[in-house]
């Protein structure tokens, strides 16, 4: 058998499509098809290029959005509660405009969280390389792209040269096989994986998600699954594109049309790992007995089923030091049932879980119910398009009637940049991706879970099992 006929992984195929030159060692110069920027880190890259007078190689393939520090209360303008934020927003606008890159500004119909709008607009495509100075760029691998987060200096390099110097990563396949119980979704798959293998479990690998449970996920569930790959310390994640992906992309703003669509489709159908190919590592998981998951501590690996308890140190997978720190920070007791924890806040939003299907699932729980007294609950749609769609379906009414605030799109309280937050020591159940210390505000206590678990917990006023509320 000639080497060109040797079986290859999906990742290998995309990689070899993009090698411009070999640089020695395991490092290659890789062509970058799409660069995405946002006002928080992208502005710095644009400023730096301007300072040294370097032009952008191909502005037509660079996109910028305003998501991280924008206000999300209605009637917003450039003003934001993030200190220094307004200046950064204005600077981003000025630099993006003079660099002639596409900008999805505050008030534009396309505006939204970068990893939500890119699939929505057909910016990310199967087989493409895409980078963004943002760690959750891995989300977009769900469409079969090699998409990964970089730093600002690398973003400058990608903008100026249309390439990056990349060391070829190892490959891992994670296969999820089996059915999913009602009330169990992609978020629970990822938390179960990270709690079993640690938040460093994917370090150094590009992870391909495969198996019947992954194929059964809709496109948005796949985006959620890949989103959490950075919490697994993977370089990124991807999923072989199939008919669901192609149907999803057809007709989107920046997706190919007509004859180009047919040619693209021909290429995309070759994008899968060949039979018999070897990965550097394989993990196989049965999903049939999965329960909704929730985190108890301050790392995404500190996750247990909602029906479970705070583990004892010996069973926690954490060192004594890390365990004690987490317990103290979270204000919880070893062995306490998760369902005993009263909550102060509920947040549905972020690039992990704020797409239309996420909002529909949460709304199905909230319909005809009210959140518990004293709980502050907020829903922030992932994009302006998601918000419009939700309003067209009447979901906003369900959220509001249940007692949720209904916001404009943005990252909002997924992270704290000095602006809005839940209060000190407030316990928040959140559909976001990071439960780090002070991530959602100074000394806030974040429990991450799926949007349906957030909705169920908001109603109960404490951490709750959504399965008791699905009909």
């Amino acid at each position: 058998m000639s080497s060109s006929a040797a079986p290859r992984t999906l990742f290998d195929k995309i990689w070899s499509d993009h090698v411009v030159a070999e640089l020695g060692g395991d490092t290659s110069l890789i062509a970058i098809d799409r660069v995405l920027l946002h006002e928080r880190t992208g502005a710095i890259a644009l400023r730096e290029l301007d300072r040294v007078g370097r032009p952008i190689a191909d502005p037509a393939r660079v996109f910028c959005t305003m998501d991280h520090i924008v206000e999300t209360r209605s009637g917003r303008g450039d003003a934001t509660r993030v200190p220094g934020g307004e200046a950064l927003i204005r600077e981003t606008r000025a630099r993006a405009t003079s660099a002639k890159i596409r900008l999805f500004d505050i008030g534009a119909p396309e505006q939204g969280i970068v990893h939500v709008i890119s699939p929505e607009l057909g910016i990310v495509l199967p087989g493409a390389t895409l980078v963004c100075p943002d760690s959750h760029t891995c989300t977009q691998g769900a469409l079969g792209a090699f998409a990964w987060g970089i730093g600002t200096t690398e973003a400058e390099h990608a903008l100026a040269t249309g390439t990056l110097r990349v060391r070829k990563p190892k490959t891992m396949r994670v296969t999820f096989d089996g059915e999913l119980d009602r009330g169990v979704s992609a978020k629970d798959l990822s938390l179960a994986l990270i709690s079993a293998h640690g938040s460093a479990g994917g370090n150094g690998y590009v992870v391909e998600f495969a198996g019947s449970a992954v194929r059964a996920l809709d496109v948005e569930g796949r985006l959620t699954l890949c989103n959490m790959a950075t919490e697994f310390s993977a370089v990124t994640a991807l999923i072989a594109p199939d008919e669901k992906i192609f149907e999803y992309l057809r007709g989107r703003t920046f997706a190919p049309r007509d004859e180009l669509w047919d040619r693209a489709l021909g290429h995309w159908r070759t994008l899968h790992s060949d039979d018999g190919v070897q990965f550097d590592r394989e993990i196989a998981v049965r999903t049939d007995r999965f329960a909704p998951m929730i985190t108890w501590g301050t790392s995404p690996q500190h996750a247990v089923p909602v029906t479970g308890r705070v583990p004892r140190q010996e069973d926690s997978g954490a060192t004594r030091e890390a365990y004690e720190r987490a317990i103290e920070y979270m204000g919880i007791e070893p062995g306490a049932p998760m369902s005993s924890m009263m909550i102060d806040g509920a947040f549905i939003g972020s690039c992990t879980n704020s797409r239309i299907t996420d909002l529909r699932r949460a709304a199905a729980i909230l319909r005809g119910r009210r959140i518990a007294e004293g709980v502050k609950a907020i829903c922030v749609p992932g994009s302006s398009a998601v918000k419009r769609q939700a309003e067209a379906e009447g979901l906003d009414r369900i959220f509001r009637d249940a007692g949720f605030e209904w916001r404009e799109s943005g990252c909002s309280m997924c992270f704290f940049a000095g602006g809005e937050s839940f209060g000190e020591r407030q316990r928040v159940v959140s559909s976001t991706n990071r439960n780090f210390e002070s991530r959602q505000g100074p000394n806030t206590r974040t429990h991450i879970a799926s949007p349906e678990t957030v909705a169920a917990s908001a109603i109960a006023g404490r951490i709750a099992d959504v399965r008791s509320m699905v009909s």
Partner: protein
Amino acid sequence: MLYANVDTDAIIPSREMKSGAKTGLADGLFAGWRYTQIGGREPNPRFVLNRPEYRGVRILLAGENFGCGSSREHAVWALREYGFRAVIAPSFSPIFYNNCVRNGIAPIRLAEPIVRELAEKVAANPQEHKVTIDLDAQEVVAHDGERRRFEIDAHLKEMLLSGLDEIDLTLTKRPEIDAFLASDRARRPWIYLET
């Protein structure tokens, strides 16, 4: 600082990245742990970097998966501005690792027991027990002369040693880039967009 999974929010909290610039960040380094109050500036005497014996340190000994979380390069800029030139840890988050190399901080991987042993030796007598790094030879040298070899990609080592501007370096490959674009445009025309 040997705990696992120290994330970039801990290295530099978002609220400390006020200027949106690459400088003015050293004060915010580890702010959540370093000061007694969030947003305050009164040093927490228990935090390792506030102890007088560690003043002026240039090497950070850290735990597994150091620099995980947000891709913010501010974490590396803050470490560099504070004075750090190297971090020794069992493993790093991939984005953080790349950011280090591009900002003159050597990210050095050594097995967990070795990092722990180095840390114990230093802690026993911080004034005398200094660790040095011989990047050229790829060795970490303890005060007692014990040498531990580490692996680093030849390309990244070169970047750290030479401090070359990577963009300039890549632009010398312009002919290869142009040739790639010409053939790729024919092969995958749908990738190329009009302005």
